[in-house]
């Protein structure tokens, strides 16, 4: 396993982020402007702005109930935003269904693992490859040549993706029977199978011990470097967030209270107050 701790040089961009130099002058993979959502009278997220470079790893942190997962659900349109614009690759996501957002290049994992538990590991990944395969219902039922060529290619691709996390030997096991850590990894593989340009990880280190977290940190960097994609992650484990992220957004009560590089965030008095003064954990 390659361990690339070396960081690319960072330059400030207007959104308040530090971007990797190689991403400057490229359209951001994700751009959010004045995003807001109300649930009845409650404003869950308000005036949320951020941009994400093509190969950037960003962290979204904040105390419990700050609205982090709500931001993820807004990004994939599971919840329709009340205000604001989300642009993926420069395309507006308004009115798109979650499956269309996925085809636009956003893949995600879930805080409480959502695998297809009664299906095999390989099938789970192949569902991620669903839109890569191009054969119709008729071709499937009649088992025409396109069925065979597509299925063979996707079998190989699925095993290749599984081998990224060294899981190819578990391909025939039921996903629900895997140990916890492997289920988390499988969820990431399934997300990667959809060929995303932006990967959203919702608390990927939840329930992991320090050594597993360290491995996850390396894996997140490997994903960025080998798949050449951006990663946005929600995480409570500060070692992971500070260790892996290029930029961090801190959310409290649905509002951004700080934005910047890990070093800035760690010494920001507003952030320290939000965590120590108001956190309920």
């Amino acid at each position, binding site marked *: 396993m390659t361990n690339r701790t070396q960081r690319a040089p960072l330059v400030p961009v207007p959104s308040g982020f530090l971007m990797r130099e190689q991403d400057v002058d490229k359209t951001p993979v994700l751009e959010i402007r004045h995003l807001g959502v109300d649930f009845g009278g409650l404003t869950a997220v308000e005036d949320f702005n951020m941009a994400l470079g093509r190969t950037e790893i960003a962290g979204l942190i904040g105390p419990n109930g700050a609205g982090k997962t709500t931001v993820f659900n807004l990004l*994939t349109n*599971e919840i329709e935003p009340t205000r604001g614009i989300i642009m993926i690759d420069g395309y507006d996501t308004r009115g798109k*269904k*979650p*499956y269309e957002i*996925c*085809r636009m290049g956003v*893949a*995600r994992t*879930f805080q409480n693992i*959502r*695998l*297809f*538990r*009664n*299906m095999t590991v390989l*099938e789970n990944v*192949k*569902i*991620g*490859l*669903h*839109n890569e*395969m191009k*054969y119709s*219902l008729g071709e*499937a*039922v*009649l*088992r025409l040549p396109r*069925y*065979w*060529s*597509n*299925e*063979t290619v*996707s079998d190989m691709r699925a095993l290749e993706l599984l081998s990224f996390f060294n899981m190819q030997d578990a391909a*025939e096991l039921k996903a629900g029977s895997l140990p916890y850590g492997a289920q988390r990894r499988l969820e990431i593989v*399934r*997300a990667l*199978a*959809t060929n995303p340009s932006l990967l959203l990880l919702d608390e990927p280190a939840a329930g992991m011990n320090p050594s597993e977290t360290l491995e996850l940190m390396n894996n997140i960097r490997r994903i960025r470097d080998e798949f050449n994609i951006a990663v946005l992650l929600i995480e409570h484990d500060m070692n992971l967030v500070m260790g892996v992220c290029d930029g961090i957004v801190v959310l409290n009560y649905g509002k951004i209270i700080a934005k910047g590089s890990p070093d800035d965030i760690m010494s920001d008095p507003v952030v320290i107050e939000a965590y120590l003064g108001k956190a309920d954990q």
Partner: protein
Amino acid sequence: MEKNLRSFFRRSTLNVILCVAFFAAVSYMISAKILNRYYTNIINLVLIYIIAAVSLNLTCGYLGQLPLGHAGFMSIGAYTAAIITTHFTLPDIGPVSGKALLFLIATVAGGVMAMAAGVLIGLPALRLKGDYLAIITLAFGEIIRVLVQNIKITGGAMGLGGIGKYTNFGWGFFWTVIVVAFTYLLINSRHGRAIKSVREDEIAAESVGINLTYYKIVAFAGAAFFAGVSGSLFAHHICYLEPGNFGYNMSIEMLVMVVLGGLGSISGSIIAATVLTIIPEVLQSFATWKMIIYSLLLVVVMIFKPSGLMGDYEFSAARLISRMLRRKEAAPKLPENYTEGGESDD
């Protein structure tokens, strides 16, 4: 690819041979009067119920929804086909009998009509889940029944008589093979995986790019088509239709077959449909105890095997044979969950 393809051909050939052998054996027994008319009728009824149960398994077992309107779709198929065969005649074309051709067309038309109804009811109903979908489809079944009772062409409450007895073992077996093969081949493709992923977790399925509405409608429409087909066979089996035939009792009966056989198991549905059709006939002599024994059987199976007789396991002739051969020599491993031509075990 070549390996997969070759193994597929090998298994398919085996299944085709088994199907033909089974068909030939039963046909011979019928024509040689080893099986009398009473038994032949039961076999036909079993095949009709297998078609209905396997198709319901598509929505119930694979898509994971709970529809209670399967009898409604059967009813649409039955009346459509019966009206066509009673109103039209076709001349013989060469060796093809006009009656058989008309029956085929009528059955397909019955299926298509049921499928259209399935899409129509599915579009609004599939936005709902669980109990809500069950109630909507239940209401749909009742609407169909009342509609049939009140329009002229279906004979109203008087019923529709004079339907030719076209359903025989050949037709029943033909459609059973079609529905089993279709379901198996669909489920083991990217479309089938998408349908199963909807059952497992809708939010996750949508997050990896599965169009939920599309696949719900596909499964619903496919199930409705074959329900229509089984309805048509049913109509030409009992030769007389009345609206009460397709009450919600029948929908429940189908559901019981699917759940008892195992949600998501084609061979389970086949076994359960066979057993549950034959048991009432066998128990005919214990008339008073019939329903108690039948119900007790359901209770016992659900207590001791809540996942149904087969769970989501599939019977596979190829695997069975390879297991028998393995006693002598180590046979190559066959993929799990393989089935096709499962009707060879009915």
